[in-house]
């Protein structure tokens, strides 16, 4: 999962470099959402262990 997030960041940077504005913006949003969901799952699993 973490590898996927890093690869998405890499693709976003490459597309930005190639001046593909719309695609890089979309990938940025996708990366942000996936990273945020991963973070939320990480918190919820920790809370479940603590409770």
């Amino acid at each position, binding site marked *: *999962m*973490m*590898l996927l*997030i*890093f*690869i998405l*960041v*890499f693709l*976003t*940077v*490459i597309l*930005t*470099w190639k*001046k593909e*504005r719309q695609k*890089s*913006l979309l990938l*940025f949003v996708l*990366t*942000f959402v996936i*990273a*945020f969901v*991963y*973070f939320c799952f*990480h*918190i919820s699993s*920790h809370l479940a262990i603590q409770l």
Partner: protein
Amino acid sequence: MPWNTKVKLITIFCNIFELAGVIIVLSMAFAFQIILHELPCPLCLLQRVGFFLIAIGFLMNLHFGFRLYHYAMTILGALFTAFVALRQISLHVIPGTGFYGSPFLGYRLYTWSFIISTIIIFFTTILFCINQQYLATNKDKKILKTYITPLTHALFSVFVVVLFLNIITVFLECGFGSCPSNPTHYLF
């Protein structure tokens, strides 16, 4: 030199300064990992992702021209980094719960991550309020093409190298699955 051009040059300098700062932070985190053999935890890796997202906003500003949504992307990345860092600080804030990693100038790396991302949010919020940067004249475009474009490509190159090295270490540490919460050795 007209006032608008001066202001634009200052904002370009500020963007380059912030971008260089983020690249230095990421390089230092990577150097800690390689030199001190400290493997990053999932939250540490998420903070790195946040710093990469911050840098993408600045890269877009330098590459496509100044837009409000580029700054919004940077602030979103910085907020994400701050959330993750705060979560990690809260895990270790109670006495007796231990620490993660070695200290740097008295603070752990996740505390530095929170401090730096908060500074970035503060600085970027001030920076995007400067109105003159959004007005592009032909002279400004000429300056951008002559001086800023080569510099932007150089920053892109360094950034891509740092990112690629991080991808390799993430693969070595986590493989294709989820990362261990307290890693002690590389999988491969």
